[in-house]
């Protein structure tokens, strides 16, 4: 209480200003003492003298009292701030440079951090994400056939999921959801408008309960909705509700048609919820698992215990042991597998004992995005931090110079009795002001940069649930970063500049050619050059990778090709109608003026889709479980190879002759021929997919040039691939193979090749499709060029950003070197004047300055080269077709820096050479 009262009174004094009461009071004290001394018999003069003596150091007592009246620390801080502000105003060039470079450095780092935070560090926006655990160390996607998955189950069939859910007591809720998600044709039954494509997923009834979130309107799903007989209901995302239905309350309870089936919308998920994981394609509709057979019909997975397609996340009961639950679930998994022994193949049974699962923290959901972007976010973080470090080094140099210039003043202050700590505080206040201003400006830079990166990195039709507006942790990061940079660039110069001998104030300063701090400044410039070399050679490696990727032969033509992505399943087409649908699409598009050729395929190269199968050969034994006998495949219509510009090297392409009743054929790529028929002619040979009994199904009729389909493993050779005609199909006995065969007939990509010089507009394409079937949903129309370039988008973004950081560092290093040499020159003017006066010629002076600078640069380069090699090694996982130790890149980077350093010192060197001795001696 009394401390509070005191603080209040101090603050009042601080604001109101002090009075002079102590001056009077001390005067009175001395007078009273003198009076007493007089009475004791001293003469007036002596009485006064003794009184003052007894009182002690009047001035210091007065100062103490005055200080105690207010808050000394706060006041000196305020005073320092005012003084620093004045000083900074007096050197606007320095201030602007400092704030600008700091804003760039802090902004870049903060921007990358906000991405790191959003993608890598943040948990799902649900209560207590720490209680969430997922099954599977590595996030797994999509569909796995059969019972065997290995030691780390990540996908489960509905049967396995319900078994685990019903037997594990440690979970409050264990939820499951369809791992790949699915596109849905959604139609508001009230309006009767055409169906639109949305992304959605099937989720277990307890999905929302498990996450612990509540509906913003209506209700979310419950266990009651997830039963075979329950009326079909769906939950909409807030985003879809806001953007497509303008938050219309009547949507709740309304009847929608999803893939043609009636669904009642029961509610809207909360705005912050973006599904079970961060993704650039968040679901807009959540359907109960039980409705999957209704929507997918014959290709449904729900009742198939040998098809694993669900991911699982559960919320554990607080206080229960994770290790205990995990052990229990492993036993349950084995129990479940044993109940399906009769359905397993012999090779599956052998692997049974190795089957196991792992329980890992699931607060961030299925971390696909973290896996995809993690590496490059760290690369960018390190690059941005390097730029910031260079900025700090530059500023430290500038601050040192300022400190040196203030030396006479500093030594005078010290001589007058100012404490060193006070001077240090003053100097640090200036640094702190600069770094805070830089940090504030940096936040603006960060906002813009983040928005740009988000736009470039996640080019999708939907938005990524990452905000560019800095969040609280990001703001905190920027603040900490600012203070840290202040310490980095401000502490050493502040300390050095106060380490002057007071005696210097008496001698004329500036009289020596050597001055303290110059060694530190040289070391700083050397460090700057070293970091720059590493950054530039890293960006060189990334640019080379990008060039290598973009210039590689993809095996097909990209120009003049447009890919239209459609979904006939959504429009309710039956498999038997498909052949005629694609024929009609072909005819309608081929009739457009400017069209050269048209074909459809299951998917096109670089579309992101991929189908793989194990292949079996007539007359060969079935491959073992570890043998690599996989090949990618696609179903295509006649004319596909021509439309894609993928040349047939041997035999014939798929044509109209390959009809339903004619013999089943396949066209393979070179890699397929190489892999399975190394020394034989593949034409006329037979193979099949779906099981060893189908080894004679397809007859190979042609070999095409390798075309790169997959948009990953870009540095590896193109994998084996085969094409089969849309018109033909095989009747498989196995459920998984039959379902795959069925789904593969729904071709998603239509390729249109335009005639040279002609253009086929999107509007023309759309109207042609509408003439075939107006209800056929078109998901996307883009040129093949665009489709391919998105594959390299991530590489391009990293390469560009790191290059940008590299250029920044180069410029900053040049500025640093230039500033250092200019300042040195100014200090050495008289020395050089004397040298010239004593007969040194201009050339040797020029050489003197140049040599000094280049020595520093070379020192930096010699440190930078190992740094660059190390950085290359760290980057190696991101480099394709480029040797991380490629000496050319390091040599070019070194050369670029040496050249920059040379040009940066030319100016000061010329100036030095033109010094007139008479003037130089007079400058002191």
């Amino acid at each position, binding site marked *: 209480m009394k401390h509070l009262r005191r603080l209040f009174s101090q603050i009042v004094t601080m604001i109101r200003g002090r009075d002079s*009461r102590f001056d*009077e009071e001390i005067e*009175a*004290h001395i007078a*009273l003492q003198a*009076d007493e001394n007089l009475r004791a018999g001293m003469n007036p003069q002596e009485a006064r003298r003794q009184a003052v003596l007894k009182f002690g150091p009047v001035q210091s007592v007065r100062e*103490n009292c005055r200080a105690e009246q207010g808050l000394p620390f706060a006041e000196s801080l305020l005073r320092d701030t005012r003084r620093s502000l004045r000083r900074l105003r007096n050197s606007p060039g320095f201030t602007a440079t400092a704030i600008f470079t700091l804003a760039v450095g802090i902004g870049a780092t903060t921007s990358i951090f906000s991405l790191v935070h959003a993608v890598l560090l943040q948990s799902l926006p649900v209560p207590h994400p720490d209680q969430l655990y997922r099954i599977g160390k590595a996030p797994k996607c999509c569909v796995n056939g059969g019972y065997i998955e290995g030691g780390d189950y990540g996908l489960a069939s509905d049967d396995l999921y319900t078994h685990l859910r019903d037997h594990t007591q440690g979970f409050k809720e264990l939820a499951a959801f369809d791992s790949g998600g699915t596109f849905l044709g959604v139609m508001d039954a009230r309006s009767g408008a055409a169906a639109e494509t949305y992304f959605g997923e099937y989720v277990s009834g307890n999905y929302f309960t498990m996450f612990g979130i509540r509906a913003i309107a209506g209700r979310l799903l419950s266990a009651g909705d997830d039963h075979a007989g329950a009326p079909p209901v769906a939950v909409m995302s807030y985003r879809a509700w806001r953007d497509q239905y303008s938050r219309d309350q009547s949507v709740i309870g309304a009847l929608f048609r999803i893939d043609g089936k009636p669904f009642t919308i029961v509610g809207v998920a909360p705005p912050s919820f973006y599904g079970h994981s961060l993704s650039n394609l968040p679901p807009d509709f959540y359907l109960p698992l039980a409705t999957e057979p209704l929507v997918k019909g014959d290709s449904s997975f729900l009742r198939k215990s040998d098809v694993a397609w669900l991911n699982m996340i559960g919320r554990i009961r607080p206080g229960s042991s994770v290790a205990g639950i995990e052990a229990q679930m492993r036993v349950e998994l084995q129990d479940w597998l044993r109940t399906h022994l009769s359905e397993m193949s012999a090779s599956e049974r052998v692997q049974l004992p190795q089957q196991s699962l792992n329980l890992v923290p699931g607060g961030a959901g299925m971390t696909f995005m973290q896996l995809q972007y993690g590496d490059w976010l760290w690369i960018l973080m390190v690059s941005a931090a390097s730029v910031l470090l260079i900025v700090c080094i530059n500023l430290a140099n500038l601050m040192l110079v300022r400190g040196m210039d203030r030396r006479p003043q500093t030594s005078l202050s010290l001589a007058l009795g100012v404490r060193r700590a006070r001077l240090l505080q003053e100097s640090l206040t200036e640094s702190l002001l600069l770094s805070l201003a830089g940090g504030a400006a940096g936040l603006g830079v960060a906002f813009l940069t983040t928005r740009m990166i988000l736009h470039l990195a996640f080019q999708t039709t939907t938005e990524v649930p990452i905000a560019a507006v800095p969040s609280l942790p990001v703001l905190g990061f920027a603040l900490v970063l600012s203070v840290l940079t202040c310490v980095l660039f401000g502490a050493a110069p502040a300390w050095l500049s106060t380490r002057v001998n007071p005696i210097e104030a008496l001698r004329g300063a500036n009289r020596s050619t050597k001055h303290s701090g110059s060694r530190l400044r040289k070391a700083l410039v050397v460090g700057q050059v070293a970091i720059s070399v590493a950054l530039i050679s890293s960006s060189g490696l990334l640019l080379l990778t990008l060039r290598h990727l973009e210039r590689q032969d993809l095996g097909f033509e990209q120009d003049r090709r447009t890919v239209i992505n459609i979904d006939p399943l959504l429009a309710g087409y039956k498999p038997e109608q498909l052949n005629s649908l694609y024929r009609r699409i072909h005819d309608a598009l081929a009739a457009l003026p400017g069209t050269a050729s048209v074909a459809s395929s299951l998917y096109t190269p670089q579309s992101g889709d991929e189908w793989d199968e194990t292949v079996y050969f007539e007359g060969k034994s079935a491959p073992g479980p570890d043998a690599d006998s996989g090949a990618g495949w696609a179903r295509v219509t006649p004319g596909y190879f021509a439309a894609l510009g993928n040349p047939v090297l041997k035999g014939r392409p798929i044509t109209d002759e390959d009809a339903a009743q004619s013999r089943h054929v396949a066209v393979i790529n070179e890699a397929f021929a190489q892999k399975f028929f190394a020394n034989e002619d593949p034409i006329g040979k037979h193979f099949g997919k779906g099981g060893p009994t189908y080894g004679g199904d397809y007859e190979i009729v042609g070999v095409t040039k390798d075309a790169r389909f997959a948009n990953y493993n870009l540095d590896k050779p193109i994998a084996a691939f085969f094409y089969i005609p849309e018109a033909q199909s095989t009747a498989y006995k196995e459920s998984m193979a039959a379902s795959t065969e069925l789904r593969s007939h729904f071709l998603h990509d239509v390729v249109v090749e335009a005639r040279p010089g002609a253009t086929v507009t999107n509007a023309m394409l759309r109207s042609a499709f509408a003439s075939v079937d107006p209800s056929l949903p078109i998901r996307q129309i883009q040129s093949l060029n665009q489709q391919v370039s998105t594959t390299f988008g991530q590489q391009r973004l990293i390469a560009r950003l790191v290059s940008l950081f590299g250029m920044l560092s180069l410029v900053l290093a040049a500025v640093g070197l230039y500033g250092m040499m200019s300042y040195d020159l100014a200090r050495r003017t008289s020395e050089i004047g004397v040298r010239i006066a004593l007969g040194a010629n201009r050339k040797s002076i020029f050489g003197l300055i140049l040599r000094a600078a280049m020595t520093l640069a070379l020192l930096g380069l010699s440190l930078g080269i190992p740094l660059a090699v190390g950085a290359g090694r760290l980057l190696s996982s991101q480099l394709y077709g480029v040797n991380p130790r490629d000496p050319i890149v390091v040599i070019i980077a070194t050369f670029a820096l040496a050249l920059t350093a040379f040009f940066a010192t030319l100016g000061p060197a010329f100036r030095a050479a033109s010094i007139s001795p008479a003037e130089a001696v007079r400058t002191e």
Partner: protein
Amino acid sequence: MKDKADVRHGTLALMVLKTLDVLGPQHGFGIARRIEQISGDLLSVNQGTLYPLLLKLEQEGAIASDWGCSENNRRARFYRLTRNGKKQLQAETMEWEQTASIMGRFLAMKAEGLR
């Protein structure tokens, strides 16, 4: 001067409060003089400590001050105890007496008594 002890740290505030309590309002010089007199001129009050202390006590609300006239007609600042100060004096007196008695008992300790 050499044989005079400085006031032990932390005890000056209590002495000031007690002085003001017993003698009524006093100016700074008066307080210092009285403390020295009461101690039988064994203590010497450092003015560099006294005035900041008076300020601190005033800021804390234990004492209040006003300008007034000294006995020989000099303008001086007079300090007086407030109600808060009286309470503080009582509390601190009790505390001090307790400490003193404990210290006394320790210092009077003899080995036999504890066996």
